[in-house]
């Protein structure tokens, strides 16, 4: 076992168990904190994949902003911060069966693919993925249009969420 494989396996086990805790935790603040553990595991995976910028953005945007916003929302909407009854629907066995079908379908499609054992080539000497990501985001030949559309989307979400949450008296 190489060190990267050990890091991957530890991170994967941590992510999956905390994801199960997110889904099953009765206390919503605990669920949000378990989500932070999962998101941090994803940041570790991005670092393992040498996507350094994505790893940093994962910590700053997901953990720093989105997860904290969830915790604030939980605190604003629940008086006792806890589901008194069962946190799951009555129909959860049906949902479990449906999820199992989706998981088995995904797994069998993956197993049929012949590129599964492909390993990554080492990065070219002196290649800077952050610089080329920045160039790709603002180059007219590449992704400047999706980038601008994303900023319009964020503006619309900002205005929309303020309008929806506003107390109209």
């Amino acid at each position, binding site marked *: 076992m190489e060190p990267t494989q050990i890091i991957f396996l530890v991170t994967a086990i941590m992510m999956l168990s905390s994801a199960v805790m997110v*889904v099953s935790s009765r206390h919503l603040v605990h669920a949000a904190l378990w989500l932070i553990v999962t998101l941090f595991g*994803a940041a570790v995976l991005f670092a393992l994949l040498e996507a350094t910028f994505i790893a940093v953005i994962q910590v700053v945007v997901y953990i720093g902003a989105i997860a904290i916003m969830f915790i604030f929302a939980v605190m604003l909407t629940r008086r006792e911060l806890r589901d008194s009854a069962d946190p799951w629907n009555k129909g959860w066995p049906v949902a*479990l069966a449906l999820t199992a079908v989706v*998981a088995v379908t*995904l797994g069998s499609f993956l197993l049929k693919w012949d590129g599964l054992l492909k390993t990554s080539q080492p990065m070219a000497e002196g290649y800077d993925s952050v610089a080329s990501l920045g160039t790709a*985001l603002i180059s007219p030949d590449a992704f400047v249009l999706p980038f601008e559309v994303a900023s319009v989307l964020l503006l619309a979400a900002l205005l929309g*969420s303020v309008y929806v949450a506003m107390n109209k008296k």
Partner: protein
Amino acid sequence: MIPISWYLFLSAALFSVGLFGVLVRKNAIAILLSVELMLNAVNINLVSFWRYGNTADMAGQVFSIIVFAVAAAEVAVGLSLVYSVYRRRNTVIADELDMMKW
């Protein structure tokens, strides 16, 4: 080296856990938490395909940044909807939000 299948199977498992959460949780905020799990699984897939394919082609990373932006927008609008509903109906349990049922 880690083969790409490890990342793909992990993200498939994470996606399934998130899907299960979306289907079974009663609390609307918990449903949004599970949606975040699914979006993260997609991001892991995108970035691993970028790394194991041609690293000079940045499409995978750019798409995952778009997913970040969409996730932030979705959480902002979703949570403000939940908060607005909570102020009117005093509940965030998805089963009790049946105003549109007839």
